[in-house]
């Protein structure tokens, strides 16, 4: 094996793949039953973290960064003058196995630039996964990218070897896609999603009848949207996220703050700051929708098309709906507890469990580890004291902001400061 050459390729093709944010390695159920290599039946594991704080759990690479498309937002676009490289199928297999054996990774996340045709590219991706499963008896996690415009037959085959399939919609609005990736057709993204969704439904139905139905993409499918490249509102983004969650049964929608990598008049200039705070607020909203029982229309609507920057979306919602508070933590149902600003689902469950034994007062809440700095304005408990004392929402917001320190403070305070 020519390690020098492979090392060079790895550097190029890992660098080109890093803008894909998904690193999930959980949700599969592939047990190591045949004394082979690997097991992905447990929870996901992050084996390391990059210096920007993102988890490294999969070997995330492109098969090649040669691409026939010229999408403005993509570092591998045809017209970009960068080093190009391509792995041989066996090289990816060897790298994956050897990294896995050393406990560096949970598996492989393989994507690719599109060379000659979508089907030809997809076939190569599948060949890697197939080799890993059938020849190497590999039960680690495999995440394959679906190539826009590839055929249904290939999507069917991909799901037999991959744990997760994903296709990145990248631009949340159809008009934005037309602007930045004029050669790509919105329908080409939708078709593989539709196929994967139908196969998963089919698999789940068949499995009930025939126990040994071959597994199909057990960790489901996901997608990703770039944030801040085309001037879309938070409402645009979250409404389309909800559309993908409900229509295509997505496991996850990822939001990726646009990192300016190219000079192009259609895009934010090079050196523009990555919108990390906005990205964070979108993820918070995503969580509220998936785990806290919120409806997207409560959080974003025509009156509030964008999320507040200085406070989290739940607090922002609560301040607009003060008539629902204060909530009595000893009586409220789970749904309402989950809506109290500052309380996560872990805290909600702790409260539900603890109140079986005694009526909770402020001390009890502190003892079981409930964070009070926001919550105290919105709850009453077994105590005469009550923090809110009928404050106006604006006043309450400023009190909360004063008593808390956000790691993002420097970002939203910027315009107030004249001198650094």
């Amino acid at each position: 094996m020519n390690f020098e050459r492979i090392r060079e390729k790895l550097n190029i093709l890992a660098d080109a793949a890093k803008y894909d944010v998904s690193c999930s390695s959980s949700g599969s159920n592939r047990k190591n039953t045949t004394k082979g290599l690997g097991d992905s039946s447990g929870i996901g594991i992050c084996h390391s973290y990059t210096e920007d704080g993102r988890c490294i759990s999969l070997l995330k690479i492109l098969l090649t960064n040669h691409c026939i498309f010229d999408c403005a937002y993509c570092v591998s676009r045809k017209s970009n003058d960068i080093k190009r490289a391509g792995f041989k199928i066996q090289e990816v297999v060897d790298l994956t196995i050897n990294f896995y054996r050393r406990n560096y990774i949970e598996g492989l996340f393989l994507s690719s630039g599109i060379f000659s045709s979508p089907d030809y590219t997809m076939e190569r991706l599948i060949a890697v996964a197939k080799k890993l499963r059938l020849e190497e008896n590999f039960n680690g996690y495999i995440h394959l990218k679906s190539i826009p415009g590839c055929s249904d037959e290939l999507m069917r085959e991909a799901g037999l070897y991959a744990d997760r399939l994903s296709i990145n919609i990248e631009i949340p609005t159809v008009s934005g896609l037309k602007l930045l990736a004029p050669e790509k057709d919105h329908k080409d993204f939708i078709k593989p999603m539709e196929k994967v969704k139908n196969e998963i439904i089919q698999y789940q139905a068949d499995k009930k009848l025939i126990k040994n139905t071959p597994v199909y993409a057990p960790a489901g499918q996901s997608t990703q949207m770039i944030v801040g490249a085309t001037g879309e509102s938070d409402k645009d983004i979250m409404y389309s996220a909800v559309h993908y969650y409900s229509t295509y049964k997505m496991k996850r929608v990822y939001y990726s703050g646009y990192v300016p990598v190219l000079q192009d008049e259609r895009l934010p200039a090079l050196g523009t700051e990555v919108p990390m705070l906005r990205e964070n607020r979108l993820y918070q909203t995503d969580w509220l929708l998936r785990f806290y029982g919120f409806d997207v229309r409560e959080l974003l609507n025509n009156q509030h098309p964008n999320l507040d920057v200085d406070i989290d979306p739940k607090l922002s919602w609560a301040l607009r709906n003060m008539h629902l508070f204060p909530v009595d933590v000893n009586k409220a149902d789970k749904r309402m507890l989950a809506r109290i600003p500052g309380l996560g689902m872990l805290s909600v469950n702790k409260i539900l469990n603890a109140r079986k034994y005694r009526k909770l007062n402020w001390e009890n809440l502190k003892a079981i580890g409930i964070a009070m700095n926001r919550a105290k304005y919105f709850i009453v408990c077994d105590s005469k004291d009550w923090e809110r004392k009928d404050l106006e929402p604006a006043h309450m917001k400023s009190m909360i902001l004063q008593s808390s320190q956000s790691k993002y403070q420097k970002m939203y305070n910027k315009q107030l400061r004249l001198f650094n």
Partner: protein
Amino acid sequence: MKTQKLKYDGTFEGLLTAIFTVYEERLSSAHIIEERFFEPDFFSELIMVFTDENKASRVWEGLKDFQQFRTSVYRSFLSELPDKEVHILDAIQYVLKTKSDKDYGHPSVLKLAQITKQIGREKHRMEAFVRFKRTKDDIYAAIIEPDFNILPLIVKHFKNRYADQQFVIYDKSRSYGIFYDLNTVQFVELDFDDTVLKEALHDEEMHYDEMWQDYFISTGIKSRINKKLHLRHVPKRYWKYLNEKNPL
């Protein structure tokens, strides 16, 4: 009234036997202490505990309705914290009396839950941070120095995962390791350190080591750098055995 000091051999069965003794003798102010930490004093009565599997398993059986709590007890035992026996005894007495194991309003039940969480975190970290190096004999070897004695807890994970490769994971701070020979996992005591391992490495090891370091760097995004977050996820005390942070 005098307190009773129960001295046990430091094994889990020993601890359970001691707890059995507390019930059997109806001791009201018992203090269980591991042999190696025991210091005699004039104010307490010494009771020697002789580990008895029968007695130990009766205590264990008594907790069978509280599976989660059992895990908590075992993990707290592995924590090596100085006061662990006090909390374990107190929590077991409370749970058996009230028949409920989730009242975190009780200080010892809460304490055990907190220790369990710490141990779980360390276990999970080790499942992530173990870095195997391939040796000439085709054994994949790793050295760790975890905060707690978590080797017994990670056996199953690694055995399932690496069913087709021989491996050793050596806990340097506790001077013992686990060895998988393609059939079973054994606890082994061996003379092992970085120097021994370095000499035994397979020729290809250096290449994969370098490629992993390369990968670690090229997968990061410079314009998003956030060292504080990085350190929170990968605390410095673990860097020693992470080859991406500490090359060969």
